[in-house]
């Protein structure tokens, strides 16, 4: 016992050193709530009150039937007014339920709201120990003591108002980016829209049809593309990318690099230049399913309609320069850099189709396996503007295939290639394309080899059923390989129909791989420029998977669409709309309120090791020119992870300082005042 007392004395000594920081003597008011019978039925509130009143620095201890009621709150007000109470401890329900009520009350009385300490003796005590009343009472005492200990050293925490720049940046002009840009602009906020391709529209404009209604994606998206292109508040940068990002939540400064098109804006999109261009290269946009010239338009309905010159494949014969009726072509154009100031950033850079070369048994892209294509290639082949005239033809010989086999889960659900996730849309688009082929070529045999068919949600199971009714053959089994007979060149798909336990060798004229959605190329550098985190799959990580799927790891930067994870078009649009609303909110309001619950850095103790920098997820701590850590108060998320990382204890989160936590720990771990039963 004596040893314990000594220890308390020792800690008091340390407290003395710290208390020199304290401006005022703590005067604590403790209030125990009965919560009707909820607390008082189990915990002996009078005993607890008695115990609390004997604790050091407590000037008043009372109990009340309902602390959250008007008379209860009045107790607080009177104590502050009459007894000079400057810290309050209320032992009642959880912080989330009425903690704020009491904090607001003391704020009304002129105290800082962080001077209130809420102790939960209902959810954490009376409700879970109803049968052990004595123990519950004892526990309540300990918890109240902990609360009082904690209250003793509570500091003032100010709330700052940060004004925001009323403009937003949207990166990526696919369906997600367009939706987000449009929604933000409709709220009256200027938007900068940056697209790396020469035209806006993204993957959706590549598709032939969209499920489940088989409607034309070009028709669905064109009102949006036209609307965005003509919106007075939207500034469009095509052929552009992000160079650097500075600043923090509410006020970002972004450098954008715009690559030259080599065609001026007075282009009338007549197409004379492309017709006369002697260079022909496979079109990346069409996944190699068509040919484009060195000067070209991404697709016929492209917006902006201005042509663009591909400098790498151009042979500079100058034919186009001379033939252009409006002299729009100018090879001397240079890339330029623009700096913009924005309050919020929406990242909507979309996805890439997985490249199946990694899955060697399927021999995708190998010589002799030209008839193995991906779904996106099939979409381009079937699209109205394709080279084949929207006919499905075998790439090897241009004949109409009789037997078509689709292979699901290529690059999805595969530990070996590192993509453990299910892309979730492949089943739907394979069913869609299989159905379209079956409609157009009723004599063809279409087989889909799947592991599981995943078509949840309204209309999709019906869509699946209708495709079954069309006579598409579904085989449950993942093909092990695509074999090629070296003498005849015929392809076979080897698969087990697991439902009938038969090994099959399917003849295939055309094999379509339903490749996964993967994070787009170049997302790593973009992520590090924005200083936001990525998930282990490579997509950008959302703030919380359920409650905040559009905010990124950093305040003020939001995610829209498939960059957060694979999604279909309707999910993407919904996600982008939500991102737009979140991104616009602080800009419409004009300011952000932030409680400065932040760490302080004691530079006398700091050894510049940088460990706090490495653990700080929102990248709020960075190093200055002298390698010292400096805190960006606005970016800080008050998690306190930097605290244990610090080897010298130089960095301390306000109100969660080591010594403040110690006081609380002493009480609950049994080292504090001994309470008698």
């Amino acid at each position, binding site marked *: 016992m004596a040893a314990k007392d000594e*220890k308390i004395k020792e800690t008091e000594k340390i407290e003395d050193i710290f208390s020199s920081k304290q401006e005022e003597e703590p005067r604590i008011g403790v209030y125990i709530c009965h919560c009707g019978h909820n607390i008082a039925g189990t915990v002996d509130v009078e005993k607890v009150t008695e115990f609390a009143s004997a604790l050091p620095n407590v000037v008043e201890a009372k109990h009340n039937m309902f602390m959250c009621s008007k008379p209860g709150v009045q107790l607080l007000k009177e104590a502050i007014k009459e007894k000079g109470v400057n810290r309050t401890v209320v032992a009642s329900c959880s912080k989330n339920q009425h903690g704020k009520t009491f904090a607001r009350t003391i704020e009304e009385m002129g105290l800082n709201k962080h001077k209130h300490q809420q102790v939960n003796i209902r959810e954490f005590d009376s409700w879970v120990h109803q049968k052990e009343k004595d*123990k519950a009472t004892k526990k309540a005492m*300990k918890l109240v003591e902990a609360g009082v200990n904690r209250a003793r050293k509570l500091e003032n925490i100010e709330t700052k108002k940060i004004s925001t720049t009323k403009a937003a940046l949207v990166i990526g002009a696919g369906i997600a980016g367009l939706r987000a840009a449009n929604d933000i602009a409709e709220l009256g906020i200027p938007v900068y829209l940056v697209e790396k391709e020469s035209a806006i529209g993204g993957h959706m404009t590549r598709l032939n049809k969209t499920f489940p209604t088989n409607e034309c994606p070009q028709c669905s998206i064109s009102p949006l593309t036209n609307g965005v292109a003509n919106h007075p508040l939207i500034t469009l940068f095509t052929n552009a990318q992000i160079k650097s990002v500075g600043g923090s939540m509410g006020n970002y400064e972004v450098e954008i690099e715009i690559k030259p098109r080599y065609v001026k804006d007075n282009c009338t999109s007549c197409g004379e230049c492309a017709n006369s261009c002697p260079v022909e290269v496979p079109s990346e946009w069409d996944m190699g399913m068509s040919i484009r010239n060195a000067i070209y338009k991404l697709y016929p309905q492209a917006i902006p309609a201005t042509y663009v010159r591909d400098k790498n494949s151009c042979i500079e014969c100058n034919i186009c320069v001379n033939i252009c009726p409006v002299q729009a072509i100018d090879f001397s154009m240079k890339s330029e850099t623009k700096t913009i100031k924005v309050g919020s950033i929406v990242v909507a850079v979309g996805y890439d189709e997985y490249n199946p070369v990694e899955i060697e048994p399927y021999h995708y892209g190998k010589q002799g396996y030209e008839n193995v294509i991906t779904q996106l290639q099939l979409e381009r082949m079937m699209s109205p503007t394709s080279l084949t005239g929207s006919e499905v033809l075998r790439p090897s010989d241009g004949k109409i295939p009789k037997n078509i086999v689709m292979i699901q889960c290529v690059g999805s659900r595969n530990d070996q290639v590192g993509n453990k996730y299910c892309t979730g849309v492949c089943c739907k688009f394979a069913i869609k394309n299989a159905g379209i082929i079956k409609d157009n070529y009723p004599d063809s045999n279409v087989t889909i080899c799947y592991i599981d068919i995943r078509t949840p949600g309204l209309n999709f199971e019906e869509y699946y059923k209708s495709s079954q009714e069309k006579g598409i053959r579904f085989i449950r089994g993942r093909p092990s390989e695509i074999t090629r007979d070296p003498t005849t060149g015929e392809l076979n798909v080897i698969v087990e129909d697991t439902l009938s336990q038969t090994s099959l060798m399917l003849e295939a004229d055309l094999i379509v791989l339903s490749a996964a959605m993967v994070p787009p190329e170049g997302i790593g550098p973009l992520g590090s420029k924005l200083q936001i985190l990525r998930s282990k799959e490579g997509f950008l990580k959302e703030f919380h998977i359920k409650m905040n799927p559009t905010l990124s790891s950093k305040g003020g930067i939001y995610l829209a669409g498939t960059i957060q994870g694979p999604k279909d078009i309707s999910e993407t649009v919904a996600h982008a709309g939500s991102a737009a609303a979140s991104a616009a909110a602080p800009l419409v309001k004009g300011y952000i309120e932030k409680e400065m619950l932040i760490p302080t850095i004691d530079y006398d103790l700091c050894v510049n090791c940088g460990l706090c920098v490495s*653990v700080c997820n929102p990248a709020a701590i960075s190093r200055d020119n002298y390698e010292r850590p400096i805190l960006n108060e606005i970016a800080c998320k008050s998690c306190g992870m930097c605290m*244990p990382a610090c080897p010298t204890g130089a960095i301390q*989160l306000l109100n969660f300082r*080591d010594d403040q936590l110690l006081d609380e720990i002493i009480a609950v*771990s049994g*080292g504090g005042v001994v309470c008698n039963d």
Partner: protein
Amino acid sequence: MIKEKDYENIVVFMCNECGQGSANTAGVARMNYDPAVKIIPVQCTGQVGPIQIMDALNNGADAVACIGCCLGACHFFNGNILSMHRIKLMKKLFKELGYSDQNINQYTSRAAEGETAVGDFVDIVERLSKAIKEGGKFEVEC
């Protein structure tokens, strides 16, 4: 099982989100658990360092645990994983020093399911009894 008088105080650091959330849910559902379990609210389990854990043990706590969000659902991205690694290291250290590593633990829980928190508490007690049985429980010499 150990007798109740063998231990008095189990200190549980619970994070602001799923940790305290699950304890609140357990309370609302009136689930019973050991009164020795006492919760200290923190911002994130990543905030709890060896200092706090040793403080608790030094001041008489019989067992210490950190309860955070599920892996992949930490509201501050990887505080729970950081804490997990930290406690793993501490366990290793305890073992090397000759103490049982069973009385410091890291758990996760789900705010919507009070059972997860209560399950964690039960496990803490079970492990503590193991530590006592092994005879290597960390104790302050005073």
